[in-house]
């Protein structure tokens, strides 16, 4: 580890530990985890190690932030190792500590640590419900790996190292989505979860493809991947090339940050355990795209057309996903589409050049969406506890709450979906803490004053209203829908009567789960303080990295409209879902008035089906066709066996009608058709054993040679 001499003050030398702390954590858990788990305190130990690892990363990030502010926000680069040096390609592994990266580090490791702690409790129960306690260890290994990769992503000093983290988090996403790889979300043996994992990885890879191409163009245009080297040359490069780079990069963004058209993996990603959904698929990884655009601000700012494309992509995603969220029944699916929608807000923001607003929303969203997901996890656990209660009343005498006698069931037990809101209802009584936490999250997400979401979303809308009216309207509509579907969720989950026995018997979660939630709830409430209008703390902080940023004046008009709309949406949702709570087996009350529209929302506008029909099926068909017809039947069997090997045999069989050998040679010879056999049968007589014919052949030779010599 050789540190540059430029780093002589502050704690910058600690920078590598943001990565190595989680690496150490995961190694400890890989090596000793199994041993831990054999002990009664094992799970606590595993979880503690992992949380500590993440916590150290957070602490280091905080120290870096402190050092950075002490250094007046000047960029500090901590070189670490040389990576790839070929010709003009000089890739080093260097830590970049600037205000932007430190912000990300703090958000990632902070939220990450909380979620680690939460997961200690959550996974304890989850692995028992899914009946594989050994997997506890693996979970924390993956989580630490994720923190590592995410830190690598945000701390990198070049596009390529960023890409390393970029793909790394994709891998962790894959691993964690497929954490329960041998079942579906309901615990039944199935390919569903692993399919979801694959889908996530491949969709991400498609995005990565765009990133790669962007990287290639960039390298051959700028001669470097290093941020500063690229940014300082921006003026000297043709805008066309920069447009190309930025647009290809956008492809990467749509993959990672789940934007149209590559968002489809994110809803499926909910197959992962809830802490994963919270950490990776809401708070951190999916925001990498936003981070990337922000990081590339110098590039994007020079090409307005590309900026507009980015903004429009974000805005459309925000709206589109919001409509789908309205029609979902799964508590996590709603949140997933909500995440997509919110990511759309952020992408739209950074696309419009409102980088601070985007980053602001990124941070607040991390708080409240993590809160929501974790609370949803708590709800699910509560329901599972209730259901567990019911179905295992015989085998688990220890549960003294089993007063409800049920009819004897044969295995497998009835399929119960603890995440389906139609199975819930009235949970505010059984899970009061969770209820309140959820309400906090909802209000933040809906953008109700004074929750964090209000401030950050408002800033985005404000920016849009000033420069991009069309995007403003789209985003406003999306914000309206956001409030609506969140209201719908609250009414469906926590109000009314339990629509399932399990909901009636749901139990509140333990403090290990709820305490991190409370922290997050506090953050969701107070996060707006980061960048209050007028103070613009975050804005000024980020200015060190992003340069001077125009700060629009707070507009009461915009804030008022959005708040009013949000409240109205919540009111409408009360009208639809709160006033007359849903009954068991009842159809969604929106189905009737909206008709086809709602069917579309329910079915996610058939995008998955469309992709399957358009791309997946065709790819499978193509690859089967190539493999079986072209490669095997045509190329291998027909061309190579019949034409090449067959000709070979045919030539030899001209003289003989014998079959050479058994298996091996026959395999060659079997390709021969009847036709060749007939031909060879008629020609085989040449070497016929008759001495006169042999003499004939000699004379033939003589005649031919003489003929040639005499007539030539």
């Amino acid at each position: 580890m050789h540190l540059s001499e430029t780093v002589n003050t502050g704690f910058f030398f600690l920078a590598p530990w943001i990565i190595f702390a989680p690496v150490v954590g995961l190694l400890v858990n890989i090596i000793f985890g199994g041993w831990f788990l054999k002990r009664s305190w094992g799970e606590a130990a595993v979880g503690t190690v992992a949380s500590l690892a993440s916590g150290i990363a957070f602490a280091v990030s905080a120290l870096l932030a402190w050092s950075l502010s002490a250094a007046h926000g000047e960029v500090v680069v901590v070189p670490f190792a040389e990576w790839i040096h070929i010709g003009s390609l000089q890739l080093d592994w260097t830590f970049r500590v600037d205000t932007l990266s430190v912000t990300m580090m703090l958000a990632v490791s902070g939220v990450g640590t909380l979620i680690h702690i939460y997961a200690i409790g959550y996974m304890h129960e989850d692995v028992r419900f899914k009946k594989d306690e050994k997997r506890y260890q693996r979970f924390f290994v993956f989580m630490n790996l994720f923190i590592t990769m995410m830190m690598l992503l945000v701390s990198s000093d070049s596009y390529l190292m960023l890409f390393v983290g970029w793909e790394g988090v994709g891998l962790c996403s894959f691993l964690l989505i497929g954490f329960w790889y041998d079942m579906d979300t309901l615990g039944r043996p199935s390919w569903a979860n692993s399919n979801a994992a694959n889908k996530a990885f491949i969709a991400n890879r498609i995005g990565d493809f765009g990133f790669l191409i962007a990287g290639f163009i960039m390298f051959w245009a700028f001669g470097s991947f290093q941020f500063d080297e690229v940014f300082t040359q921006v003026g000297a490069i043709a805008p066309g090339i920069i447009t190309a780079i930025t647009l290809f990069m956008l492809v990467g963004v749509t993959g990672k940050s789940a934007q149209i058209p590559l968002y489809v993996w994110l809803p499926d990603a909910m197959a992962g355990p809830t802490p994963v959904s919270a950490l990776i698929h809401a708070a951190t990884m999916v925001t990498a795209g936003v981070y990337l655009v922000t990081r590339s601000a110098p590039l994007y700012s020079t090409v307005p057309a590309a900026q507009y494309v980015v903004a429009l992509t974000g805005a459309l995603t925000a709206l589109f996903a919001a409509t789908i969220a309205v029609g979902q029944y799964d508590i996590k699916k709603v949140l997933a589409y909500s995440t997509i929608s919110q990511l759309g807000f952020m992408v739209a923001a950074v696309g419009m050049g409102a980088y601070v607003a985007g980053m602001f929303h990124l941070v607040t969203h991390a708080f409240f969406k993590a809160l929501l997901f974790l609370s949803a996890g708590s709800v699910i656990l509560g329901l599972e506890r209730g259901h567990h209660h019911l179905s295992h009343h015989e085998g688990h005498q220890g549960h003294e709450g089993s007063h409800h006698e049920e009819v004897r069931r044969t295995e497998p037990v009835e399929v119960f979906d603890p995440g389906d809101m139609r199975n819930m209802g009235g949970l505010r009584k059984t899970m009061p803490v969770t209820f309140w936490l959820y309400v906090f999250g909802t209000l933040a997400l809906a953008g109700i004053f004074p929750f964090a979401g209000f401030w950050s979303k408002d800033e985005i809308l404000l920016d849009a209203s000033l420069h991009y009216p069309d995007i403003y309207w789209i985003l406003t509509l999306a914000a309206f829908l956001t409030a609506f579907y969140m209201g719908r969720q609250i009414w469906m989950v926590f109000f009314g009567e339990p629509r399932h026995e399990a909901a009636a018997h749901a139990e509140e979660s333990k403090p290990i789960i709820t305490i991190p939630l409370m922290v997050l709830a506090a953050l969701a409430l107070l996060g707006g303080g980061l960048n209050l209008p007028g103070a613009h703390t975050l804005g000024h902080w980020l200015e060190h990295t992003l340069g001077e940023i125009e700060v629009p004046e707070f507009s009461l008009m915009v804030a008022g409209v959005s708040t009013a709309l949000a409240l109205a949406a919540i009111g409408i949702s009360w009208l639809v879902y709160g006033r007359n709570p849903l009954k068991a087996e009842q159809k969604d009350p929106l189905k009737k008035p909206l008709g086809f529209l709602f069917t579309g929302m329910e079915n996610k506008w058939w995008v998955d089906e469309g992709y399957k029909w358009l791309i997946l099926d065709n790819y499978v068909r193509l690859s089967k066709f190539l493999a079986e017809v072209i490669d095997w039947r045509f190329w291998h069997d027909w061309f190579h066996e019949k034409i090449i090997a067959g000709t070979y045999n045919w030539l030899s069989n001209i003289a003989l009608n014998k079959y050479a050998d058994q298996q091996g040679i026959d395999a060659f010879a079997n390709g021969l058709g009847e036709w060749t056999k007939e031909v060879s049968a008629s020609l085989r007589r040449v070497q016929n054993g008759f001495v006169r014919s042999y003499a004939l052949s000699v004379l033939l030779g003589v005649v031919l040679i003489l003929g040639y010599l005499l007539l030539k």
Partner: protein
Amino acid sequence: MKFFLEPLTLLTFFPLVGVLVLLFLPSDKKNLLRWTALVTSLVTFGISLWVLSMFNASNPDLQLATRYPWITVAGWNIEYHMAVDGLSILLVLLTTFLTPISILSTWAAVEERVKDFMLFFLLLEVGMTGVFLAQDLFLFYIFWEFTLVPMYFLIGIWGGPRRIYAALKFFLYTMAGSILMLLAILWLGIQQGSFSVPELIEMGGIPADIQLWLFLAFAAAFAIKVPMWPLHSWLPDAHVEAPTAGSVILAGVLLKMGTYGFIRFNLPLFPEAAIQAAPWMALLAVIGIIYGAAVSYAQQDAKKLVAYSSVSHLGFVMLGLFAMNPQGIQGGILQMVNHGLSTGALFLLVGMIYEQTHTRDLKVYGGLWKITPVFGSLMLIVALSSMGLPGLNGFVGEFTILLGAWGAGMDGGVLGSVLFAGFAAAGVIMAAVYILYMFQKMFLGPEGSIVEEVKKHGHALRDLNAREIITMVPLLVFIFWIGLYPKPFFALMAPAVDKLVVILQAAMH
């Protein structure tokens, strides 16, 4: 005696010592035979490390040369000329590295005719090392052809049900290419009066139209070996039928002989022709990448899937080589090593599970990660390496190749179109598709029928044992090492590649 103590001679022919010892060992002492072979190959590996320690990475030329006149009658000028440079040192190391690993993998897999197996394996090592070291065309050709023989036996005796067919096909197809190369070698010997590779490169001056023919003749041999699309048809047969160790060596080293041939002979000897052919070679390479990936995805046989993936991976190597810039070529060479490690490891792992289940049908697998966590984790790492995840070796190679190919595709580049790199990059997506598909079908999802099937035979599926893990660990070490810190590997080849690029650049103008 001095002759045999020259480092490269010793390196190449040391396995023969093992062969001699084996000849005199009783054939029923199986473990003794195995240990003899293993120790021999380990010593050979040690010698290769010794060679590495003497290798001067900053010198772009051939080093540690052993050069004796060999056949010098009647105007012949054939030499025994062995030398190593940055283009070959890694491949030599790869060979000596993979051989002990492969031998280790046969411990339980090969029970029949152990002695013969080890004999052929060590002979194969001699041939492979020789191919990478020979600097005389005739000598090269001898080693090149010689490798066919032991491999033919390895497939034909210890292979799967259609082994004879596969072995014959392997032999005939590769020989078909190499005889054309023989003619080209003869032409060079007659017209240029030398078989010495460095001398021929220095001499140059082959007319462009003839260069093209010679290029094609050499390319025929190498392209079949690589195998480039559409000459790959022998590969799935050979791989599927070969025993695990054979597959490892076949994929790990023998295929590299083809790509190495391009870089050692085709590019420097016929630079004008190579430049002319570059877009076409790149086209075939890219088709190979896409086609191999697509076809892999449709396979139900794990080994076949990996075999087709080689077509795709080697396509990357070829694309890199014909990018003709430092990034492309260095990436290509590194990718040769990477493919040897990753695909070798994949074959080893598939072989290990096959030893337990006796099937490679993906349909019967599933959910094994739960039963065999170590196995699953290793497979995952190797799979990720194979699909080019950053941080693992595959990425470093593929990325530099694509970067190089993109550069070569821009104005003034030899490929003329960035589409090659673009489509190849799309191949990276497809790699994820088939590798994940395989990983999923084996390790994820619900428990497959094979678990019950194996239980029926009285023993449950077990996780990897210590020997199997020891077999895998060295590979994993390099998979991570190259992925995280490839600098020493690039440093070994950089000067030699730069020298090659200078030759190519000169030919471009």
